[in-house]
């Protein structure tokens, strides 16, 4: 086993009766990497995390942590720390008791337990809370304590199971930053499950997008954003979601995407493996890659339409524009002065677009 990987998952399969929850899944996580498992509910991301933690028995395949095959190992022997969505703090124990419970089970000497608890408390700034019980803590404090419980274990791998989902928006943003700092500070491997794309984009070194028990794409946030492997990933990342045109790639003088009575030239589009193809396809362009006003004038492709709906966000303004009976989302400047019913011209550069095959929906 090569040592550069902190976690290796080989041909992992998990089924409940006839139902396959994880299908022949392979994944390598580098040492010190922050990996986010992203997907909608039921995609198998939490199941995968539970398998790594040893909380679920796998049906087939192997799991390595460090150099060890831990497939049959007890959770506590895998060298992991885990943080749960509902905090899972033991209600009858104080914060200090919660933090030290695992260490006591491991039979560590008392002074060391104390030292580790204090160190974790200091990092997380929960020292004043150590003697309180979970019921007396706020949501953010509880989640800090829960992180502390993972921290004291000095584990090589941290597993987070949607740790911020139960918090309100403000706290979520704060703790997100703290987790990122924590990763920078400790630089151990972290696997983080979430359905929130902002968390995924901001935290991850790499994101694994999952669906139906399989990983659809495993790549850096940038790559995923710019070159989604298939239509599902493209739709999943980005808000508002990517605009799609249903049409056909046709040849002739340079490749074009034909949709209705338009034909978008595809010069500069970065085909996968550099191989241009023709045939039925989806043409996707993100709202933030659309331009309006004077910029639209100079865009390579221009479409005229009518504003249906405006969502001012302060920093940006989102507008839904009806073009040839199709609704397109456009992200504009925060101060854009438009109203429902305005006639408008939108433009974009096809080089920023993504093309997906009509039948297998993979990126072209």
């Amino acid at each position, binding site marked *: 086993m090569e040592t550069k990987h902190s976690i290796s998952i080989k041909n992992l399969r998990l089924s409940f009766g006839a139902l396959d929850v994880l299908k022949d899944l392979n994944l390598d996580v580098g040492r010190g990497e922050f990996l986010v498992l992203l997907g909608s509910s039921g995609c198998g991301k939490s199941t995968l995390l539970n398998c790594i933690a*040893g909380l679920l028995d796998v049906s087939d395949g192997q799991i390595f942590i460090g150099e060890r095959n831990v497939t049959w190992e007890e959770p506590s022997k895998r060298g*992991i*720390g885990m943080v749960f969505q509902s905090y*899972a*703090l033991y209600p*009858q124990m104080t914060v200090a008791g919660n933090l030290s419970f*695992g260490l006591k*089970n491991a039979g560590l000497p008392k002074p060391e337990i104390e030292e580790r608890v204090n160190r974790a408390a200091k990092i997380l700034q929960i020292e004043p809370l150590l003697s309180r019980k979970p019921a007396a803590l706020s949501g953010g404090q509880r989640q800090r304590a829960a992180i502390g419980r993972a921290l004291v274990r000095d584990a090589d791998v941290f597993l987070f199971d949607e740790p911020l989902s139960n918090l309100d928006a403000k706290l979520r943003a704060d703790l997100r930053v703290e987790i990122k700092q924590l990763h920078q500070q400790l630089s151990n491997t972290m696997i983080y499950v979430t359905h929130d794309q902002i968390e995924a984009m901001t935290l991850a070194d790499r994101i694994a997008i999952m669906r139906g028990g399989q990983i659809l794409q495993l790549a850096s946030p940038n790559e995923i954003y710019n070159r989604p492997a298939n239509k599902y990933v493209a739709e999943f990342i980005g808000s508002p979601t990517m605009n799609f045109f249903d049409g056909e790639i046709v040849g002739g003088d340079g490749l074009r995407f034909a949709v209705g009575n338009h034909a978008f030239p595809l010069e500069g589009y970065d085909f996968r493996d550099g191989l241009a193809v023709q045939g039925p396809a989806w043409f996707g362009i993100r709202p933030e890659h659309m331009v309006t006003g004077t910029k639209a004038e100079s865009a390579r492709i221009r479409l005229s339409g009518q504003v249906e709906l405006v969502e001012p966000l302060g920093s940006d303004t989102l507008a839904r524009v009806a073009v040839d009976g199709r609704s397109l989302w456009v992200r504009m400047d925060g101060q854009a002065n438009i109203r429902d019913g305005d006639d408008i011209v939108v433009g974009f550069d096809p080089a920023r677009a993504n093309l997906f095959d009509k039948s297998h929906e993979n990126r072209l």
Partner: protein
Amino acid sequence: MGNVTKTAAEIQLAPARQEMTGPRGPKPGRTLSRRNIMIYGTLIVVSLYYLLPLYVMVVTSLKGMPEIRLGNIFSPPVEITFQPWVKAWAEACTGLNCDGLSRGFFNSVRILIPSVVLSIAIASVNGYALANWRFKGSETFFTILIVGAFIPYQVMIYPIVIMLREVGLYGSLTGLVIVHTIFGMPILTLLFRNYFASVPQELFKAARVDGAGFWGIYFQIMVPMSLPIFVVAMILQVTGIWNDFLFGVIYTKPDLYPMTVQLNNIVNSTQGVKEYNVNMAATILTGLVPLTIYFISGKLFVRGIAAGAVKG
């Protein structure tokens, strides 16, 4: 200056006056609304129905036998006597031993405590294993257990006599404790299983990551969290075991007979004079132990089941 003050007062009053047109302040008539009359009326009528037998029993227990013979069961005692109570507790005869219920009281306690402790201990571990540590076949055994809850006790008397005889526990306190444990198991296991299933799974997972094993999680996480359901189980078991007569008398010997044997002997003598006042006093006396536990743990009782059975 005076003018100004007056204007200020007017300004202060103005908004109040504006509100006067509609309903304002607390809704009137809350305490004696039709709804409340219905609720309390129903509860009081129902309570009377529930209290009627107790009333008859208490009144009868305070009468002398000649007064009871007169036959009005509802009339309060003309001459209150506590003699039946004294007799029921300390003088009523069970065959040769004329020391009333007091004779079996200690035996009942001796049977009650280990039976309640063991049956709850085993059923709670069962429920815990079924909720959190399922293994192949565990649900099948549980289903058998639930079906077992429906078997009339009488049918099992002889098979259990034979089983206890074969393992050499027949006639001993241990044997009786095991019998109580067996017959309490179905319902208690169901209760605990439903309770532990409602404990967040993540707590259980967190404890496993923390290195606690089957027993570690049970004792250090689950038990401290589940005191209310233990109280519920205790109430069910105390009531059942304390009032048990059949098992106590079949699986032990006279020196271990529980209080209900005396109660039965006082009440069920087929030939001879029936002292209804003593019967009633004896019944109430026998019921005092479970009743006391209801009173003490009434609130926990409700809370405990709430936690246990919310999730199926």
